[in-house]
């Protein structure tokens, strides 16, 4: 697998050099691989957002290095290119939407890339189509639901045609439909458009759809691997203050009671399949 983003011994201090200096990241070495969906979890204050903000040079390391396709983020001349490769979506879409009409908002990024008009229109169309937002094209962002606003913010980033999109808790303030639609679209961008995704979240039912997960604690990486493997180490995970998916908890309980259940269940559908097999074998 090719590395798209690589951090080497990344340390970051807020208010560096003052008496209020706080170490937010402590020698973090990790990779984001091309084409994967990587979930980043961890308690509030564990360093998730600080790490994510290094991926497109919004922050640069106090010590260590971050490379995006081999380009060092500490090198000022690289920043423009890096931000074309890695786009960023924030928790609150109101901080990200700039125009009074949806399609103008989505055009904002491509316009700033200095693209010809025809190309801008084509990209806006493509972004709207890809995320199933065509019906919102001429709406005013303030008339949209929070979920729709977040989708428009994603479309704005998508129109820049990045290779990687980093989403910082994009579903934290959404209602159930908003959460589901954002998640579905993000998964689709990965599977159908091949866009690498870094997804910061507290919701374990979102994490289970990702290829790999990272658990942060006190500015370091505490665990990493496929969700199935991480959720098996449930006692370790509890110490980090994170949840276990509902299906895993029930499977674990049934296993303890002596039923023949697979130990690697994280999805509801897997648990149902497994129970149905058990039912037909009795």
């Amino acid at each position, binding site marked *: 697998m090719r590395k798209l983003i690589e951090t080497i011994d990344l340390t970051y201090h807020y208010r560096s050099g003052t008496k209020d200096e706080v170490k937010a990241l402590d020698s973090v070495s990790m990779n984001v691989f091309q084409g994967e969906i990587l979930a980043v979890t*961890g*308690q*509030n*204050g564990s360093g998730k957002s600080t790490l994510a903000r290094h991926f497109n040079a919004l922050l640069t390391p106090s010590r260590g290095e971050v490379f995006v396709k081999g380009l060092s983020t500490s090198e000022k001349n690289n920043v423009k290119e890096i931000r074309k490769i890695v786009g960023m979506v924030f*928790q609150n879409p109101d901080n990200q939407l700039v125009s009074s009409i949806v399609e103008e908002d989505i055009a904002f990024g491509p316009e700033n890339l200095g693209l010809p008009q025809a190309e801008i229109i084509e990209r806006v169309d493509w972004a709207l189509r890809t995320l199933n937002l065509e019906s919102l094209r001429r709406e005013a962002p303030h008339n949209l*639901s*929070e*979920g729709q606003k977040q989708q428009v913010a994603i479309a704005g980033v998508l129109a820049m045609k990045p290779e990687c999109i980093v989403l910082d*808790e994009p579903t*934290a*303030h*959404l*209602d*159930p*439909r*908003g*959460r*589901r639609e954002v998640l579905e679209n993000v998964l689709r961008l990965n599977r159908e458009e091949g866009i690498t995704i870094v997804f910061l979240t*507290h919701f*374990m*039912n979102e994490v289970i759809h990702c290829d790999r997960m990272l658990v942060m604690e006190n500015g370091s990486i505490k665990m990493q691997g496929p969700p199935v493997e991480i959720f098996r180490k449930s006692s370790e995970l509890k110490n980090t*203050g*994170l*949840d276990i998916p*509902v*299906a895993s*908890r*029930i499977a674990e*309980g*049934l296993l303890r*009671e002596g*039923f023949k259940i697979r130990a690697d269940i994280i999805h*509801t559908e897997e*648990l*149902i399949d497994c*129970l*149905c097999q*058990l*039912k037909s074998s*009795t």
Partner: protein
Amino acid sequence: MPIEVINLNHSYKEGTPFEKQVLFDINLVIDDGEFVGIIGPTRSGKTTLAQHFNALHIPRRGKVLVDGVDTKDKQADLITVRHRVGYVFQNPDYQLFAPTVGEDIAFGPLNQKLPGSEVEKKVREAMDQVGLDYKTLYNRDIFALSGGQKRRAAIAGVLACRPRILVLDDVTAGLDPRGREDILAVIRKLHRRQNITIIFISNSMDEVASMAERIIVIDGGRVLMDDTTKKVFARFVELRSIGLELPEVSVLIDELQQAGFKLPDGILSVNEALHSISSALREMEAQK
């Protein structure tokens, strides 16, 4: 001290060309000591409705009675209403405004013109109720608090006014699982030990299912359902049609029932689910 809502209608920008009605003919009663969940899609009117409970909104059409006091009565003592019905906003940054934790929480009692010793006592008690350490955090800079601590400080500020009713507007949004569980434990304790009426607005169906005894579902500014938690989540087709979901556990149970498992209705927690699945499996083994 119940809340009674009678034929309540509400429009924003009333009397202008931009007038938009957001609440339609709402009627409900919330009794003392209840734990009521309010759910609904974004912009359904949940918050607007709840802000009528402590006179942040005054009805133009219809009325709201808090402990018999009509909030639109010109003689009504709205300060007392707002002390009785505390409102905790979703975003603690909108609520916290003083430089330190102690000063912020003391704001309410100071406005009640209580003597200094009494104010300090109330601040201490409020911090204790939400699990904030008085000694170490009283002088702490508000900006130095974590997300979860900020929510607790916001709740403490409201508790210091000794409300009998607490409205919590999506107070766990954006918190990590442990932070969320801590806040929920604080809320449960306030309800059980002090019998404070809780009105709990949330976007998390799992949370509402685990906390509330009764649920009011709002959609398009109307009360769509108002029933016990179990009965509301049994109407999942309707809930899904307005963009809500079931608690994760209920989804699993529903699908297992469809696959032929004999499981009781109304299961909302992991423990109940585990227990009933394991008995169903044992029963099948026994029949073999």
